[in-house]
């Protein structure tokens, strides 16, 4: 039994790895796109963290501790970068490969199954998102925004965010009919970025709005990364992680099912 399971896991790894290889070969000529993605989040950090941060100075958190506004906002922008990196990759790029370039139609005739495709795309998105996260964390460190050893854990925390949004992005890619749908996605994403606890603690919002924020996947990502980068771990983080993982697995499952249905006619 375990031998079979091991064999299947190995086959899945190899197959999804083959798709990863495909994306790598296809993208290595377009590395400029990867760099531009990293630059974007750094610009956000400079604009909000240092621009607005200089005006606001220190803020007091609901639990009474005081932190500089830049240190408060930077982890949220990091969480946002972790989201955007994979969301762009899994939604728009996968949609283009799926509906326009028909890349999966050719792959369909090989031993790869929809699961392998979904998993391969998630690996790829994680790697691409990971480069943004890495660059961002290095810059945070250079500006002295990482105060405690806990903050190193912000990096793996970002991986949970990436996983969650990779699942969501893949599902959206299979649901979307045409480009206008992406405008809706971007609107929702921007709303999450603005109101998901990025710029102010959630407790500052009116009571009726707070439950809406708690449902936002990005909120859970921000809480996780901020708590760690400020060196304030707490039990609620387990809820954040569980929520993000559930989104990840659920999203991938729906995506591979829809991919299979669309391709195996």
């Amino acid at each position, binding site marked *: 039994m375990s031998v079979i399971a091991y064999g299947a896991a190995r086959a899945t790894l190899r197959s999804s790895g*083959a798709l990863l290889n*495909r994306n790598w070969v296809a993208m290595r000529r377009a590395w400029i796109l990867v760099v531009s993605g990293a630059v974007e989040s750094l610009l956000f950090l400079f604009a909000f963290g240092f621009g607005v941060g200089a005006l606001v100075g220190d803020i007091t958190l609901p639990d009474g501790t005081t932190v500089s506004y830049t240190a408060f906002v930077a982890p949220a922008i990091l969480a946002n970068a972790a989201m955007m990196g994979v969301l762009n990759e899994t939604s728009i790029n996968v949609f283009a490969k799926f509906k326009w370039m028909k890349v999966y139609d*050719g792959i369909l*005739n*090989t031993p790869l199954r929809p699961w392998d495709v979904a998993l391969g795309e998630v690996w790829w998105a994680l790697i691409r998102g990971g480069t943004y996260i890495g660059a961002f964390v290095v810059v945070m460190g250079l500006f002295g925004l990482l105060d405690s050893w806990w903050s190193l854990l912000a990096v793996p925390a970002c991986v949970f965010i990436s996983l969650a949004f990779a699942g969501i992005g893949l599902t959206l890619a299979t649901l979307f009919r045409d480009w206008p749908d992406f405008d809706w996605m971007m609107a929702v994403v921007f709303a999450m970025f603005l109101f998901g606890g990025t710029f102010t603690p959630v407790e500052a919002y009116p009571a009726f709005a707070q439950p809406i924020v708690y449902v936002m996947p990005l909120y859970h990502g921000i809480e996780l990364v901020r708590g760690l980068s400020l060196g304030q771990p707490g039990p609620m983080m387990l809820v954040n992680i569980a929520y993000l993982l559930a989104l990840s697995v659920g999203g991938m499952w729906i995506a591979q099912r829809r991919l299979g249905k669309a391709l195996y006619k």
Partner: protein
Amino acid sequence: MPDDNEMLVRASDLRKSYGDHEAVRGVDFEIRRGEAFGFLGANGAGKSTTMRMIGCVSQPTAGTLEVFGRDPLTEGAAIRARLGVVPQDNTLDGMLTVFENLVVYARYFGIKKRDARVKAAELLDFVQLTARAKDQVNELSGGMQRRLAIARSLINDPDLVILDEPTTGLDPQARHLVWERLFQLKHRGVSILLTTHYMDEAEQLCDRLVVMDEGRIIAAGSPRELIDTHVTKEVVELRFGAAHTAELAELALTLTGVGAQIEPLPDKILVYTDDADDTGAALEAREITPTSTLARRATLEDVFLRLTGRALVEDEA
């Protein structure tokens, strides 16, 4: 050593429906190792759907299907690992170069990078595209893209190569290049399964074929057998100036007896006969003088016409 009589594909009462539309309505066939097997039929006859089921990318609605003795429903990935598929629309990867298309595809089959590169170079040579290795696939002509798709289908040394309409949409010269490569494959003993609506393609390439119409198989055998069974040896084509459908149908009535069978078409009348000279003499005796008379050998096109009452390539004729 593979057994020459080994069955690669076995289908019985195979069916496929899309909603209310029944694309394949119960077909039976067997494909043996080493043979070139064809599905001949007009567009929409159910050929591609049957190919997709054999290729394990479409689930049969009913009936049984075995590929390499396995069940496509539960062992699709294992079957696909041994198949080479050339889809009608090539499905090449537009983001990759010609060479990368092959190497990347090889990796899907678990072939190691180093082996993949050797194999890719070999196959590019086989389809005469070595000079285009570094080009993007979109820069290739239709015929070159098809040849690349053929090369790609061979990357895993498949036990069976499936080609769906391999020369549809190609100009005559490109068609001949593709045919020539397929002959090479046949010569090497590769088992080939192809669909086509070109009777000359089926006649030249296939050892055995089935004729499909409206989701059913209406005849099966070697090209020679099919011609011998369903039509006479020769065909005389008669044209009567500008005479058209209705006039020709009327004229056909006066021809009874000059051949084994008279078939009026929109632009000509076909007389099926075992001896074209006899038919010519009979026409003369009746003082019937067509504006043009052409005697030729019967082809699969005639078989199809006799069986269905329709031409194979109606829209392109």
